[in-house]
C-alpha cells in the first residue's frame, strides 16, 4: 500500500514537472509563432508557396497603407489638416500602393521559385512599406496636424490680445500671464517645425538601403522635434482653455 502511494506521488510529481515544461515552452514559442505566421519555409520548387507568402506580405502592406489613407481622409474632413497636406500624403500612399500592385501582378504570374523569391525581395527592398513609408508618412501626418494647429493658435493671438486688453483689471494680470505663456509656446512650436520639415527629404528607401543607421538617426531626430512641438501645442492649448474659462466667468 505504501509502495502504491509512493508510486502515485512520484507519478504526480513527474506529471506536474512535465506540465510546467509544456507550459513554459508554449509561452516561449506562441508569441514568435503568432508574430511571424509568414515565416514559412517553402520547398525549393514550390512556386505556389512562395507566391502565397508574397501575396500575404503584400496584403499586409496594402492594409496598412489603406488604414493610413483612411486616417488622412478623416483628419482632412475634420479640417485638422489642409487639403494640400492631405493630397500630398494620398499621392505618396497611392504611389506605394501602385508599386505593391505591380509587384503582385508580376509575382502571381511567376512560374519559377527563383523569380517569385526575387519579387518577394523587391517588396522589401524597393518599397520598404513598413520600414520607411509607414513610419515616415505617419510622422508627416502628425506634423501636418501640428502645423495646422500651430497656425490656428497663431491666428488667435490678436483676438486673445484684444480680450486681454479689454478685460477688467482684477484678472488682467492672470490673463496676461497665460497669454504670454501661450505666445511663447506657439513660437517654440513653430521654431521646431522647420527642423522637422528639413528631415523628411532624407527619409527615403534609397537612404534606408544605403545606411540603415543614419536613417534611424534621422527618424529619431524627427520624432524628437515632433515631440517638442506636440508638448508646446499641448501647453498653448491648455493656456487657451484657461483664458477661455476666465473670459466665460464674467
Amino acid at each position: 500500500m505504501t509502495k502504491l502511494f509512493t508510486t502515485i506521488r512520484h507519478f504526480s510529481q513527474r506529471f506536474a514537472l512535465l506540465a510546467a515544461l509544456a507550459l513554459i515552452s508554449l509561452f516561449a514559442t506562441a508569441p514568435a509563432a503568432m508574430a511571424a505566421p509568414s515565416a514559412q519555409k517553402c520547398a525549393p520548387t514550390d512556386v505556389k508557396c512562395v507566391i502565397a507568402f508574397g501575396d500575404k506580405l503584400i496584403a499586409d502592406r496594402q492594409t496598412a497603407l489603406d488604414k493610413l489613407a483612411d486616417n488622412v481622409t478623416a483628419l482632412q474632413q475634420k479640417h485638422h489638416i489642409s487639403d494640400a497636406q492631405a493630397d500630398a500624403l494620398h499621392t505618396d500612399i497611392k504611389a506605394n500602393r501602385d508599386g505593391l500592385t505591380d509587384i503582385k501582378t508580376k509575382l502571381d504570374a511567376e512560374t519559377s521559385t527563383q523569380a517569385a523569391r526575387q519579387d518577394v525581395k523587391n517588396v522589401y527592398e524597393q518599397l520598404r512599406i513598413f520600414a520607411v513609408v509607414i513610419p515616415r508618412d505617419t510622422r508627416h501626418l502628425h506634423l501636418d496636424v501640428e502645423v495646422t494647429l500651430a497656425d490656428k493658435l497663431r491666428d488667435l493671438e490678436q483676438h486673445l490680445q484684444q480680450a486681454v486688453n479689454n478685460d477688467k483689471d482684477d484678472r488682467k494680470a492672470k490673463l496676461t500671464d497665460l497669454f504670454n505663456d501661450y505666445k511663447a509656446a506657439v513660437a517654440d512650436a513653430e521654431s521646431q517645425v522647420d527642423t522637422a520639415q528639413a528631415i523628411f527629404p532624407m527619409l527615403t528607401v534609397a537612404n534606408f538601403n544605403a545606411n540603415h543607421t543614419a536613417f534611424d538617426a534621422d527618424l529619431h531626430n524627427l520624432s524628437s522635434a515632433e515631440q517638442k512641438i506636440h508638448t508646446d501645442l499641448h501647453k498653448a492649448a491648455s493656456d487657451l482653455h484657461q483664458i477661455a474659462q476666465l473670459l466665460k466667468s464674467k
Partner: protein
Amino acid sequence: MNWISRTRRWSILVLVTLLLVLSLTVAACGQAASQPSSSNNSSSGNYSTSQQSTSQDDNSTQIQNADQDVQSQIQSLDKTQNDVMNSGSTQDNGQMP
C-alpha cells in the same frame, strides 16, 4: 425821374425784404436740421458703446469656439502621436519563404 427813382427804391426794399425772409428761412431750416443731427450724435454715441460691447462679446465667443475647436484638434494630435509610436520599422524584417 422821380417816378423812376421811387420804383427803384421800392424794388430794392422788396429785394432786401425777400433776402431777409430767405435768410431767416434758411437759418431756421439749418437749426431744425442741426437739432436732429445732435440727437443723432447722441444716439450714435450710445450705438458706439453698444457696438464696442457687442464686439467684445463677439471676441469672447470666438475665443470660446476656438477653444472647443483646438481641444478637438488636440485629440487628433494625440491619436496621430500614438500612431507614430506604433509605426516602428521592426516589422519589415526581410523574412524570405
